[in-house]
Protein backbone atom coordinates (compact mmCIF):
# COMPACT_ATOMS: atom_id res chain seq x y z
CA UNK A 1 0.00 0.00 0.00
CA UNK A 2 2.62 2.47 1.13
CA UNK A 3 5.15 2.02 -1.65
CA UNK A 4 2.62 3.71 -3.90
CA UNK A 5 2.95 6.73 -1.70
CA UNK A 6 6.71 6.46 -1.37
CA UNK A 7 7.20 7.05 -5.07
CA UNK A 8 5.69 10.39 -4.34
CA UNK A 9 4.85 13.44 -6.21
CA UNK A 10 6.30 14.65 -9.45
CA UNK A 11 5.83 18.17 -8.20
CA UNK A 12 8.26 17.81 -5.34
CA UNK A 13 11.32 19.84 -6.07
CA UNK A 14 14.33 18.62 -4.17
CA UNK A 15 17.12 20.98 -3.31
CA UNK A 16 20.75 19.77 -3.07
CA UNK A 17 20.54 19.40 0.69
CA UNK A 18 17.70 16.95 0.22
CA UNK A 19 15.26 19.51 1.56
CA UNK A 20 12.23 20.04 -0.58
CA UNK A 21 10.23 22.99 -1.67
CA UNK A 22 11.58 25.74 -3.82
CA UNK A 23 8.26 26.53 -5.47
CA UNK A 24 5.80 25.59 -2.76
CA UNK A 25 5.31 22.08 -4.20
CA UNK A 26 3.79 19.09 -2.39
CA UNK A 27 5.10 17.40 0.73
CA UNK A 28 7.63 14.59 0.92
CA UNK A 29 6.63 10.99 0.37
CA UNK A 30 7.30 10.17 4.01
CA UNK A 31 4.93 12.92 5.11
CA UNK A 32 2.19 11.71 2.78
CA UNK A 33 2.62 8.21 4.14
CA UNK A 34 2.34 9.54 7.69
CA UNK A 35 -1.04 11.07 6.82
CA UNK A 36 -2.31 7.89 5.21
CA UNK A 37 -0.96 5.20 7.54
CA UNK A 38 -3.19 5.83 10.59
CA UNK A 39 -6.21 5.01 8.44
CA UNK A 40 -4.73 2.44 6.09
CA UNK A 41 -3.08 0.25 8.69
CA UNK A 42 -6.38 -0.52 10.51
CA UNK A 43 -8.23 -0.53 7.17
CA UNK A 44 -5.95 -3.27 5.84
CA UNK A 45 -5.94 -5.21 9.12
CA UNK A 46 -9.64 -5.01 9.93
CA UNK A 47 -11.20 -4.77 6.45
CA UNK A 48 -9.02 -6.25 3.73
CA UNK A 49 -7.37 -9.04 5.73
CA UNK A 50 -10.70 -10.41 7.11
CA UNK A 51 -12.22 -10.33 3.62
CA UNK A 52 -9.23 -12.29 2.32
CA UNK A 53 -9.33 -14.62 5.30
CA UNK A 54 -13.05 -15.34 4.80
CA UNK A 55 -12.36 -16.15 1.15
CA UNK A 56 -9.50 -18.45 2.09
CA UNK A 57 -11.57 -20.18 4.78
CA UNK A 58 -14.46 -20.67 2.40
CA UNK A 59 -12.24 -22.81 0.16
CA UNK A 60 -11.15 -25.10 3.01
CA UNK A 61 -12.81 -28.35 3.93
CA UNK A 62 -12.71 -30.21 7.25
CA UNK A 63 -11.57 -33.80 7.21
CA UNK A 64 -11.65 -36.23 10.08
CA UNK A 65 -9.52 -39.23 10.75
CA UNK A 66 -10.95 -42.11 12.72
CA UNK A 67 -14.67 -41.46 12.55
CA UNK A 68 -16.84 -38.63 13.72
CA UNK A 69 -14.97 -37.95 16.94
CA UNK A 70 -11.50 -38.37 15.51
CA UNK A 71 -9.02 -35.57 15.10
CA UNK A 72 -9.81 -33.17 12.30
CA UNK A 73 -7.69 -31.24 9.86
CA UNK A 74 -8.55 -28.81 7.11
CA UNK A 75 -7.25 -28.72 3.59
CA UNK A 76 -8.16 -27.18 0.24
CA UNK A 77 -11.70 -28.20 -0.57
CA UNK A 78 -12.42 -26.34 -3.79
CA UNK A 79 -16.02 -25.28 -4.08
CA UNK A 80 -17.24 -27.88 -1.60
CA UNK A 81 -18.38 -25.27 0.94
CA UNK A 82 -20.20 -23.28 -1.72
CA UNK A 83 -21.89 -26.38 -3.02
CA UNK A 84 -23.14 -27.02 0.54
CA UNK A 85 -24.45 -23.49 0.80
CA UNK A 86 -26.44 -23.85 -2.41
CA UNK A 87 -27.77 -27.25 -1.40
CA UNK A 88 -28.87 -25.94 2.01
CA UNK A 89 -32.64 -25.47 2.02
CA UNK A 90 -32.43 -23.26 5.10
CA UNK A 91 -30.15 -20.93 3.16
CA UNK A 92 -32.66 -20.64 0.33
CA UNK A 93 -35.59 -20.07 2.64
CA UNK A 94 -33.68 -17.32 4.47
CA UNK A 95 -32.88 -15.72 1.11
CA UNK A 96 -36.50 -16.07 -0.01
CA UNK A 97 -37.73 -14.49 3.21
CA UNK A 98 -35.34 -11.57 2.98
CA UNK A 99 -36.16 -11.17 -0.71
CA UNK A 100 -39.86 -10.92 0.04
CA UNK A 101 -39.09 -8.52 2.89
CA UNK A 102 -36.95 -6.32 0.63
CA UNK A 103 -39.31 -6.31 -2.34
CA UNK A 104 -42.12 -4.99 -0.14
CA UNK A 105 -40.38 -2.98 2.58
CA UNK A 106 -37.86 -1.04 0.48
CA UNK A 107 -40.37 0.40 -2.05
CA UNK A 108 -42.92 1.22 0.68
CA UNK A 109 -40.31 2.96 2.82
CA UNK A 110 -38.78 4.90 -0.06
CA UNK A 111 -42.18 5.91 -1.41
CA UNK A 112 -43.23 7.32 1.98
CA UNK A 113 -39.82 9.02 2.28
CA UNK A 114 -40.21 10.57 -1.17
CA UNK A 115 -43.74 11.84 -0.46
CA UNK A 116 -42.53 13.39 2.81
CA UNK A 117 -39.52 14.99 1.11
CA UNK A 118 -41.71 16.42 -1.66
CA UNK A 119 -44.24 17.78 0.83
CA UNK A 120 -41.52 19.37 2.94
CA UNK A 121 -40.24 21.02 -0.22
CA UNK A 122 -43.60 22.75 -0.93
CA UNK A 123 -45.04 25.81 0.80
CA UNK A 124 -48.05 23.68 1.83
CA UNK A 125 -46.71 22.73 5.25
CA UNK A 126 -46.16 24.53 8.49
CA UNK A 127 -43.88 23.32 11.29
CA UNK A 128 -41.48 21.93 8.71
CA UNK A 129 -38.47 21.66 10.99
CA UNK A 130 -40.55 19.83 13.61
CA UNK A 131 -41.69 17.24 11.06
CA UNK A 132 -38.16 16.87 9.72
CA UNK A 133 -36.79 16.32 13.20
CA UNK A 134 -39.51 13.88 14.24
CA UNK A 135 -38.97 11.69 11.20
CA UNK A 136 -35.20 11.68 11.68
CA UNK A 137 -35.30 10.91 15.41
CA UNK A 138 -35.46 7.10 14.98
CA UNK A 139 -32.06 7.28 13.25
CA UNK A 140 -30.53 7.94 16.69
CA UNK A 141 -32.12 4.75 18.04
CA UNK A 142 -30.09 1.53 17.55
CA UNK A 143 -31.89 -1.35 15.81
CA UNK A 144 -31.85 -3.47 18.98
CA UNK A 145 -33.48 -0.78 21.11
CA UNK A 146 -36.01 0.01 18.37
CA UNK A 147 -36.90 -3.67 18.16
CA UNK A 148 -37.29 -3.88 21.95
CA UNK A 149 -39.58 -0.82 21.90
CA UNK A 150 -41.70 -2.20 19.08
CA UNK A 151 -41.81 -5.67 20.59
CA UNK A 152 -43.59 -4.14 23.59
CA UNK A 153 -46.04 -2.53 21.17
CA UNK A 154 -46.59 -5.92 19.51
CA UNK A 155 -46.94 -7.97 22.66
CA UNK A 156 -50.60 -8.74 23.51
CA UNK A 157 -50.04 -8.24 27.28
CA UNK A 158 -48.58 -4.74 27.13
CA UNK A 159 -49.50 -3.16 23.85
CA UNK A 160 -51.83 -0.15 23.78
CA UNK A 161 -52.05 -0.70 20.01
CA UNK A 162 -53.42 -4.22 20.46
CA UNK A 163 -55.84 -2.88 23.10
CA UNK A 164 -56.99 -0.21 20.70
CA UNK A 165 -57.53 -2.68 17.86
CA UNK A 166 -59.32 -5.08 20.21
CA UNK A 167 -61.58 -2.18 21.11
CA UNK A 168 -62.74 -1.86 17.51
CA UNK A 169 -63.30 -5.59 17.17
CA UNK A 170 -59.99 -6.61 15.60
CA UNK A 171 -57.74 -9.29 17.02
CA UNK A 172 -54.29 -8.78 15.52
CA UNK A 173 -51.44 -11.19 16.16
CA UNK A 174 -48.30 -9.22 15.31
CA UNK A 175 -46.08 -12.15 16.25
CA UNK A 176 -47.99 -14.84 14.37
CA UNK A 177 -46.35 -16.94 11.65
CA UNK A 178 -47.75 -14.86 8.78
CA UNK A 179 -47.28 -11.47 10.41
CA UNK A 180 -43.91 -11.54 12.14
CA UNK A 181 -41.92 -10.83 8.96
CA UNK A 182 -43.98 -7.69 8.41
CA UNK A 183 -43.65 -6.71 12.05
CA UNK A 184 -39.88 -6.81 11.52
CA UNK A 185 -40.33 -4.84 8.27
CA UNK A 186 -42.24 -2.19 10.18
CA UNK A 187 -39.29 -1.73 12.57
CA UNK A 188 -36.91 -1.18 9.63
CA UNK A 189 -39.36 1.24 8.06
CA UNK A 190 -39.69 3.16 11.32
CA UNK A 191 -35.90 3.34 11.71
CA UNK A 192 -34.90 4.41 8.21
CA UNK A 193 -37.72 6.37 6.54
CA UNK A 194 -36.58 9.68 8.03
CA UNK A 195 -32.96 9.12 7.08
CA UNK A 196 -33.89 8.40 3.47
CA UNK A 197 -36.34 11.27 3.44
CA UNK A 198 -33.58 13.67 4.48
CA UNK A 199 -31.21 12.49 1.76
CA UNK A 200 -33.95 13.14 -0.83
CA UNK A 201 -34.92 16.42 0.82
CA UNK A 202 -31.32 17.67 0.76
CA UNK A 203 -31.19 16.89 -2.95
CA UNK A 204 -34.48 18.76 -3.53
CA UNK A 205 -33.12 21.78 -1.69
CA UNK A 206 -30.22 22.08 -4.09
CA UNK A 207 -32.45 22.41 -7.18
CA UNK A 208 -32.41 26.03 -8.40
CA UNK A 209 -35.80 27.77 -8.01
CA UNK A 210 -35.74 29.18 -11.57
CA UNK A 211 -36.49 25.72 -12.87
CA UNK A 212 -39.88 25.76 -11.15
CA UNK A 213 -40.64 29.25 -12.40
CA UNK A 214 -40.05 28.04 -15.95
CA UNK A 215 -42.27 25.00 -15.48
CA UNK A 216 -45.03 27.17 -13.96
CA UNK A 217 -44.90 29.54 -16.91
CA UNK A 218 -45.38 26.52 -19.14
CA UNK A 219 -48.57 25.83 -17.19
CA UNK A 220 -47.41 22.83 -15.16
CA UNK A 221 -49.37 22.05 -12.01
CA UNK A 222 -47.69 21.42 -8.65
CA UNK A 223 -48.16 17.69 -9.15
CA UNK A 224 -46.63 17.79 -12.59
CA UNK A 225 -43.68 19.79 -11.28
CA UNK A 226 -43.19 17.30 -8.47
CA UNK A 227 -43.30 14.16 -10.63
CA UNK A 228 -41.90 15.41 -13.93
CA UNK A 229 -39.31 17.91 -12.73
CA UNK A 230 -38.31 17.25 -9.14
CA UNK A 231 -38.32 13.45 -9.04
CA UNK A 232 -36.20 13.00 -12.20
CA UNK A 233 -33.68 15.55 -10.93
CA UNK A 234 -33.23 13.82 -7.59
CA UNK A 235 -33.16 10.35 -9.23
CA UNK A 236 -29.48 9.85 -8.21
CA UNK A 237 -30.47 10.29 -4.54
CA UNK A 238 -33.30 7.82 -4.93
CA UNK A 239 -30.88 5.32 -6.47
CA UNK A 240 -28.45 5.94 -3.60
CA UNK A 241 -31.10 5.37 -0.92
CA UNK A 242 -32.25 2.22 -2.73
CA UNK A 243 -28.72 0.84 -2.77
CA UNK A 244 -28.28 1.63 0.96
CA UNK A 245 -31.61 -0.08 1.63
CA UNK A 246 -30.67 -3.20 -0.33
CA UNK A 247 -27.41 -3.48 1.62
CA UNK A 248 -29.28 -2.94 4.89
CA UNK A 249 -31.92 -5.54 4.08
CA UNK A 250 -29.37 -8.24 3.32
CA UNK A 251 -27.61 -7.49 6.60
CA UNK A 252 -30.73 -7.78 8.71
CA UNK A 253 -29.93 -9.28 12.09
CA UNK A 254 -30.72 -7.27 15.23
CA UNK A 255 -34.45 -6.71 14.68
CA UNK A 256 -35.44 -10.34 14.00
CA UNK A 257 -33.04 -11.50 16.73
CA UNK A 258 -34.93 -9.36 19.28
CA UNK A 259 -38.34 -10.48 18.01
CA UNK A 260 -37.12 -14.06 18.30
CA UNK A 261 -36.92 -13.52 22.06
CA UNK A 262 -40.69 -13.17 22.22
CA UNK A 263 -41.94 -15.08 19.18
CA UNK A 264 -41.58 -18.75 18.39
CA UNK A 265 -42.24 -17.94 14.75
CA UNK A 266 -38.71 -16.71 14.12
CA UNK A 267 -36.18 -19.49 13.67
CA UNK A 268 -32.46 -19.22 14.41
CA UNK A 269 -31.95 -19.18 10.63
CA UNK A 270 -34.59 -16.58 9.81
CA UNK A 271 -32.24 -14.29 7.84
CA UNK A 272 -29.00 -15.15 5.98
CA UNK A 273 -26.92 -13.45 8.68
CA UNK A 274 -28.69 -15.33 11.44
CA UNK A 275 -27.96 -18.53 9.54
CA UNK A 276 -24.26 -17.61 9.20
CA UNK A 277 -24.07 -16.90 12.92
CA UNK A 278 -25.87 -20.14 13.79
CA UNK A 279 -23.47 -22.13 11.59
CA UNK A 280 -20.43 -20.37 13.09
CA UNK A 281 -21.72 -21.10 16.60
CA UNK A 282 -21.76 -24.76 15.59
CA UNK A 283 -17.99 -24.40 15.00
CA UNK A 284 -18.36 -24.86 11.25
CA UNK A 285 -16.34 -21.77 10.38
CA UNK A 286 -15.56 -22.76 6.79
CA UNK A 287 -19.25 -23.11 6.03
CA UNK A 288 -20.04 -19.84 7.85
CA UNK A 289 -17.31 -18.13 5.82
CA UNK A 290 -18.81 -19.43 2.57
CA UNK A 291 -22.25 -18.15 3.62
CA UNK A 292 -20.79 -14.72 4.48
CA UNK A 293 -19.02 -14.57 1.11
CA UNK A 294 -22.23 -15.51 -0.73
CA UNK A 295 -24.17 -12.80 1.17
CA UNK A 296 -21.48 -10.22 0.33
CA UNK A 297 -21.48 -11.23 -3.35
CA UNK A 298 -25.29 -11.04 -3.55
CA UNK A 299 -25.08 -7.59 -1.92
CA UNK A 300 -22.52 -6.42 -4.49
CA UNK A 301 -24.39 -7.87 -7.45
CA UNK A 302 -27.73 -6.40 -6.41
CA UNK A 303 -26.42 -2.94 -5.54
CA UNK A 304 -24.18 -2.63 -8.59
CA UNK A 305 -26.82 -4.21 -10.80
CA UNK A 306 -29.40 -1.76 -9.59
CA UNK A 307 -27.06 1.18 -10.08
CA UNK A 308 -26.15 0.08 -13.63
CA UNK A 309 -29.76 -0.60 -14.55
CA UNK A 310 -31.09 2.72 -13.31
CA UNK A 311 -28.22 4.81 -14.59
CA UNK A 312 -28.74 3.39 -18.10
CA UNK A 313 -32.48 3.97 -17.97
CA UNK A 314 -32.28 7.47 -16.63
CA UNK A 315 -29.23 8.35 -18.71
CA UNK A 316 -27.47 9.60 -15.60
Amino acid at each position, binding site marked *: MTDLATRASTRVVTSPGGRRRLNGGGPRAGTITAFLIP*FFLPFVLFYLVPVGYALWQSFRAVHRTGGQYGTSYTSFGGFEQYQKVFENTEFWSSIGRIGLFGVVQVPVMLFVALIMALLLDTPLLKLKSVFRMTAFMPYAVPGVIAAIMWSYLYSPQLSPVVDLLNGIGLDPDFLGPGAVLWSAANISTWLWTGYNMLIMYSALQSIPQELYEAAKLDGASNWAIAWRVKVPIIAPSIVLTTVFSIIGTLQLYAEPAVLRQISSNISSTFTPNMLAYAVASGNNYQQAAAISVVIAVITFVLSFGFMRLTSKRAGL
Partner: protein
Amino acid sequence: MSNTSVNRESRVSRTAAMALMLLLAIYFLLPIYFLIVAATKPQGDLATTNGLAFSHFNLFDNLRVLFTRSDGIFGRWAVNTVIYAVLGAAVGTLISALCGYALAKFRFRGREFLFSVILGGVLVPTTALALPLFLLFSATGIVNTYLAVFLPSIVSPFGVYLARIFANASVPQELIESARLDGAGEFRTFFSVAFKLMTPALVTIFLFQFVAIWNNFFLPMVMLQKESLFPITLGLYQWNGQTARAPLLQQSVITGSLVSIVPVIIVFILLQRFWRTGLAAGSLK
Protein backbone atom coordinates in the same frame (compact mmCIF):
# COMPACT_ATOMS: atom_id res chain seq x y z
CA MET B 1 -53.26 34.08 -8.22
CA SER B 2 -56.27 35.58 -6.39
CA ASN B 3 -58.57 33.16 -8.18
CA THR B 4 -60.86 31.55 -5.57
CA SER B 5 -60.80 28.05 -7.04
CA VAL B 6 -57.00 28.06 -6.81
CA ASN B 7 -57.31 29.14 -3.17
CA ARG B 8 -59.80 26.43 -2.36
CA GLU B 9 -57.65 23.83 -4.08
CA SER B 10 -54.61 24.95 -2.14
CA ARG B 11 -56.55 24.93 1.12
CA VAL B 12 -57.61 21.34 0.48
CA SER B 13 -54.05 20.28 -0.37
CA ARG B 14 -52.73 22.21 2.62
CA THR B 15 -55.07 20.34 4.94
CA ALA B 16 -54.37 16.99 3.32
CA ALA B 17 -50.61 17.57 3.52
CA MET B 18 -50.77 18.59 7.18
CA ALA B 19 -53.00 15.62 8.03
CA LEU B 20 -50.65 13.17 6.34
CA MET B 21 -47.58 14.64 8.02
CA LEU B 22 -49.27 14.63 11.43
CA LEU B 23 -50.19 10.98 10.99
CA LEU B 24 -46.60 10.13 10.11
CA ALA B 25 -45.31 12.20 13.04
CA ILE B 26 -47.53 10.18 15.38
CA TYR B 27 -46.12 7.00 13.88
CA PHE B 28 -42.53 8.15 14.46
CA LEU B 29 -43.19 9.37 17.98
CA LEU B 30 -45.42 6.53 19.18
CA PRO B 31 -42.71 4.07 20.34
CA ILE B 32 -40.72 6.81 22.05
CA TYR B 33 -43.80 8.19 23.78
CA PHE B 34 -44.78 4.68 24.87
CA LEU B 35 -41.28 4.16 26.26
CA ILE B 36 -41.40 7.41 28.24
CA VAL B 37 -44.77 6.50 29.73
CA ALA B 38 -43.75 2.91 30.49
CA ALA B 39 -40.47 3.98 32.12
CA THR B 40 -42.39 6.02 34.69
CA LYS B 41 -44.62 3.14 35.81
CA PRO B 42 -44.06 0.50 38.46
CA GLN B 43 -43.61 -2.98 36.97
CA GLY B 44 -47.07 -4.06 38.14
CA ASP B 45 -48.78 -1.30 36.16
CA LEU B 46 -47.15 -2.21 32.84
CA ALA B 47 -49.66 -4.89 31.91
CA THR B 48 -52.64 -3.63 33.90
CA THR B 49 -52.85 0.04 32.90
CA ASN B 50 -53.29 1.75 29.52
CA GLY B 51 -49.89 1.85 27.83
CA LEU B 52 -50.39 5.40 26.56
CA ALA B 53 -51.50 6.95 29.86
CA PHE B 54 -49.34 7.77 32.88
CA SER B 55 -50.18 5.98 36.12
CA HIS B 56 -48.14 6.01 39.36
CA PHE B 57 -45.00 8.02 38.81
CA ASN B 58 -42.23 5.62 39.67
CA LEU B 59 -39.42 6.78 37.36
CA PHE B 60 -36.86 7.55 40.08
CA ASP B 61 -37.38 4.20 41.70
CA ASN B 62 -37.03 2.49 38.32
CA LEU B 63 -33.79 4.36 37.71
CA ARG B 64 -32.45 3.35 41.12
CA VAL B 65 -33.28 -0.31 40.42
CA LEU B 66 -31.76 -0.05 36.94
CA PHE B 67 -28.45 1.33 38.16
CA THR B 68 -28.11 -1.00 41.16
CA ARG B 69 -29.14 -4.24 39.47
CA SER B 70 -26.34 -6.86 39.28
CA ASP B 71 -23.82 -4.62 41.09
CA GLY B 72 -24.52 -1.67 38.85
CA ILE B 73 -23.66 -3.41 35.60
CA PHE B 74 -25.82 -0.95 33.62
CA GLY B 75 -23.49 1.91 34.57
CA ARG B 76 -20.60 -0.20 33.38
CA TRP B 77 -22.37 -0.78 30.05
CA ALA B 78 -22.89 2.95 29.73
CA VAL B 79 -19.17 3.58 30.24
CA ASN B 80 -18.34 0.87 27.70
CA THR B 81 -20.72 2.46 25.19
CA VAL B 82 -18.91 5.77 25.60
CA ILE B 83 -15.57 4.01 25.08
CA TYR B 84 -16.74 2.18 21.96
CA ALA B 85 -18.93 4.82 20.35
CA VAL B 86 -17.57 8.20 21.51
CA LEU B 87 -13.87 7.38 21.73
CA GLY B 88 -14.07 5.10 18.68
CA ALA B 89 -15.78 7.79 16.61
CA ALA B 90 -13.28 10.42 17.82
CA VAL B 91 -10.23 8.36 16.85
CA GLY B 92 -11.97 7.25 13.66
CA THR B 93 -12.78 10.84 12.69
CA LEU B 94 -9.18 11.94 13.21
CA ILE B 95 -7.67 9.19 11.06
CA SER B 96 -10.38 9.62 8.39
CA ALA B 97 -9.69 13.35 8.34
CA LEU B 98 -5.92 12.88 7.92
CA CYS B 99 -6.44 10.36 5.13
CA GLY B 100 -9.23 12.28 3.37
CA TYR B 101 -7.23 15.52 3.57
CA ALA B 102 -4.16 13.83 2.11
CA LEU B 103 -6.25 12.30 -0.70
CA ALA B 104 -7.79 15.69 -1.45
CA LYS B 105 -4.80 17.96 -1.14
CA PHE B 106 -1.62 16.01 -1.92
CA ARG B 107 -0.76 14.78 -5.38
CA PHE B 108 0.93 11.43 -5.51
CA ARG B 109 0.93 8.34 -7.62
CA GLY B 110 -1.74 5.75 -6.78
CA ARG B 111 -4.00 8.34 -5.19
CA GLU B 112 -7.07 7.44 -7.22
CA PHE B 113 -6.37 3.73 -6.79
CA LEU B 114 -6.26 4.07 -2.99
CA PHE B 115 -9.47 6.08 -3.07
CA SER B 116 -11.30 3.43 -5.08
CA VAL B 117 -10.12 0.71 -2.68
CA ILE B 118 -11.62 2.77 0.17
CA LEU B 119 -14.87 3.26 -1.75
CA GLY B 120 -15.04 -0.51 -2.26
CA GLY B 121 -14.77 -0.81 1.51
CA VAL B 122 -18.01 1.19 1.90
CA LEU B 123 -19.83 -1.63 0.16
CA VAL B 124 -18.46 -4.48 2.29
CA PRO B 125 -21.28 -5.53 4.65
CA THR B 126 -19.99 -5.12 8.22
CA THR B 127 -21.77 -8.30 9.26
CA ALA B 128 -19.74 -10.23 6.67
CA LEU B 129 -16.57 -8.87 8.31
CA ALA B 130 -17.50 -9.78 11.86
CA LEU B 131 -17.16 -13.56 11.59
CA PRO B 132 -13.71 -13.69 9.92
CA LEU B 133 -12.56 -10.95 12.32
CA PHE B 134 -13.66 -13.11 15.20
CA LEU B 135 -11.48 -15.96 13.93
CA LEU B 136 -8.48 -13.69 13.41
CA PHE B 137 -8.93 -12.10 16.81
CA SER B 138 -9.34 -15.40 18.59
CA ALA B 139 -6.08 -16.56 17.00
CA THR B 140 -4.35 -13.48 18.41
CA GLY B 141 -6.13 -13.57 21.77
CA ILE B 142 -7.87 -10.19 21.35
CA VAL B 143 -11.35 -11.71 21.52
CA ASN B 144 -13.29 -10.76 24.65
CA THR B 145 -11.37 -7.53 25.24
CA TYR B 146 -12.22 -3.88 24.64
CA LEU B 147 -9.88 -3.86 21.65
CA ALA B 148 -11.93 -6.52 19.82
CA VAL B 149 -14.81 -4.07 19.41
CA PHE B 150 -12.86 -0.81 19.53
CA LEU B 151 -10.22 -1.47 16.85
CA PRO B 152 -12.50 -2.49 13.95
CA SER B 153 -14.86 0.37 14.84
CA ILE B 154 -12.34 3.13 14.18
CA VAL B 155 -12.20 2.27 10.47
CA SER B 156 -14.78 4.21 8.49
CA PRO B 157 -14.37 4.21 4.70
CA PHE B 158 -17.43 6.45 4.45
CA GLY B 159 -15.71 8.89 6.82
CA VAL B 160 -12.69 9.14 4.48
CA TYR B 161 -15.03 9.69 1.54
CA LEU B 162 -16.77 12.55 3.36
CA ALA B 163 -13.45 13.97 4.63
CA ARG B 164 -12.10 14.11 1.09
CA ILE B 165 -15.19 15.89 -0.22
CA PHE B 166 -15.16 18.36 2.67
CA ALA B 167 -11.41 19.02 2.46
CA ASN B 168 -11.78 19.78 -1.24
CA ALA B 169 -14.67 22.11 -0.58
CA SER B 170 -13.50 23.94 2.54
CA VAL B 171 -9.70 24.15 2.52
CA PRO B 172 -8.37 26.52 -0.19
CA GLN B 173 -5.09 25.37 -1.75
CA GLU B 174 -3.67 28.91 -1.43
CA LEU B 175 -3.96 28.76 2.36
CA ILE B 176 -1.95 25.54 2.44
CA GLU B 177 0.66 27.06 0.14
CA SER B 178 1.03 30.16 2.24
CA ALA B 179 1.33 28.11 5.44
CA ARG B 180 4.12 26.18 3.72
CA LEU B 181 5.86 29.41 2.71
CA ASP B 182 5.67 30.51 6.33
CA GLY B 183 7.67 27.40 7.09
CA ALA B 184 4.95 25.31 8.72
CA GLY B 185 5.30 21.53 8.38
CA GLU B 186 2.47 19.54 6.80
CA PHE B 187 1.10 18.34 10.14
CA ARG B 188 1.29 21.80 11.61
CA THR B 189 -0.59 23.11 8.56
CA PHE B 190 -3.18 20.40 8.92
CA PHE B 191 -3.81 20.92 12.62
CA SER B 192 -3.67 24.70 12.74
CA VAL B 193 -5.17 25.65 9.38
CA ALA B 194 -7.15 22.78 7.81
CA PHE B 195 -8.52 21.33 11.04
CA LYS B 196 -10.30 24.58 11.91
CA LEU B 197 -11.76 25.00 8.45
CA MET B 198 -12.92 21.41 8.44
CA THR B 199 -14.45 21.45 11.94
CA PRO B 200 -18.13 21.42 10.85
CA ALA B 201 -17.31 18.56 8.48
CA LEU B 202 -15.47 16.69 11.22
CA VAL B 203 -18.46 16.97 13.55
CA THR B 204 -20.56 15.46 10.75
CA ILE B 205 -18.15 12.57 10.25
CA PHE B 206 -18.05 12.04 14.02
CA LEU B 207 -21.85 11.88 14.23
CA PHE B 208 -22.16 9.40 11.38
CA GLN B 209 -19.47 7.17 12.77
CA PHE B 210 -20.89 7.42 16.27
CA VAL B 211 -24.25 6.16 14.97
CA ALA B 212 -22.59 3.39 12.96
CA ILE B 213 -20.74 2.06 16.03
CA TRP B 214 -23.72 2.61 18.33
CA ASN B 215 -25.88 0.65 15.87
CA ASN B 216 -23.42 -2.16 15.22
CA PHE B 217 -24.85 -4.96 17.27
CA PHE B 218 -23.41 -7.92 15.40
CA LEU B 219 -19.74 -7.12 16.06
CA PRO B 220 -19.95 -6.84 19.89
CA MET B 221 -22.23 -9.86 20.00
CA VAL B 222 -19.73 -11.97 18.08
CA MET B 223 -16.67 -10.67 19.97
CA LEU B 224 -17.80 -10.45 23.58
CA GLN B 225 -18.82 -13.04 26.12
CA LYS B 226 -17.88 -11.10 29.24
CA GLU B 227 -20.89 -9.09 30.41
CA SER B 228 -18.64 -6.45 31.91
CA LEU B 229 -17.46 -5.50 28.40
CA PHE B 230 -20.90 -5.19 26.80
CA PRO B 231 -22.21 -1.95 25.29
CA ILE B 232 -25.71 -0.95 26.44
CA THR B 233 -27.37 -2.43 23.35
CA LEU B 234 -25.94 -5.90 23.92
CA GLY B 235 -26.64 -5.75 27.65
CA LEU B 236 -30.28 -4.77 27.16
CA TYR B 237 -30.65 -7.45 24.49
CA GLN B 238 -29.45 -10.05 26.97
CA TRP B 239 -31.73 -8.79 29.75
CA ASN B 240 -34.64 -8.73 27.32
CA GLY B 241 -34.02 -12.41 26.58
CA GLN B 242 -34.30 -13.21 30.28
CA THR B 243 -37.60 -11.45 30.96
CA ALA B 244 -39.60 -14.65 30.41
CA ARG B 245 -37.83 -16.18 33.44
CA ALA B 246 -37.34 -12.95 35.38
CA PRO B 247 -40.38 -10.75 34.64
CA LEU B 248 -39.10 -7.98 36.93
CA LEU B 249 -36.30 -7.32 34.43
CA GLN B 250 -38.89 -5.94 32.02
CA GLN B 251 -39.11 -2.59 33.79
CA SER B 252 -35.31 -2.28 33.77
CA VAL B 253 -35.15 -3.07 30.05
CA ILE B 254 -37.71 -0.32 29.42
CA THR B 255 -36.06 2.24 31.70
CA GLY B 256 -32.63 1.29 30.33
CA SER B 257 -33.80 1.77 26.75
CA LEU B 258 -35.06 5.24 27.60
CA VAL B 259 -31.86 6.17 29.44
CA SER B 260 -29.79 5.02 26.48
CA ILE B 261 -31.60 6.86 23.70
CA VAL B 262 -32.64 10.18 25.25
CA PRO B 263 -29.12 11.70 25.46
CA VAL B 264 -28.39 10.68 21.88
CA ILE B 265 -31.64 12.16 20.61
CA ILE B 266 -30.90 15.42 22.44
CA VAL B 267 -27.41 15.61 20.93
CA PHE B 268 -28.92 15.03 17.50
CA ILE B 269 -31.47 17.80 17.95
CA LEU B 270 -28.73 20.19 19.08
CA LEU B 271 -26.38 19.32 16.25
CA GLN B 272 -28.87 19.07 13.42
CA ARG B 273 -27.14 21.52 11.11
CA PHE B 274 -24.13 19.18 11.04
CA TRP B 275 -25.80 15.94 10.05
CA ARG B 276 -27.83 17.81 7.48
CA THR B 277 -24.58 18.93 5.84
CA GLY B 278 -23.45 15.32 5.81
CA LEU B 279 -26.64 14.07 4.24
CA ALA B 280 -26.44 16.77 1.60
CA ALA B 281 -22.89 15.69 0.77
CA GLY B 282 -23.97 12.06 0.64
CA SER B 283 -26.68 12.88 -1.86
CA LEU B 284 -24.40 14.73 -4.26
CA LYS B 285 -23.04 11.57 -5.84
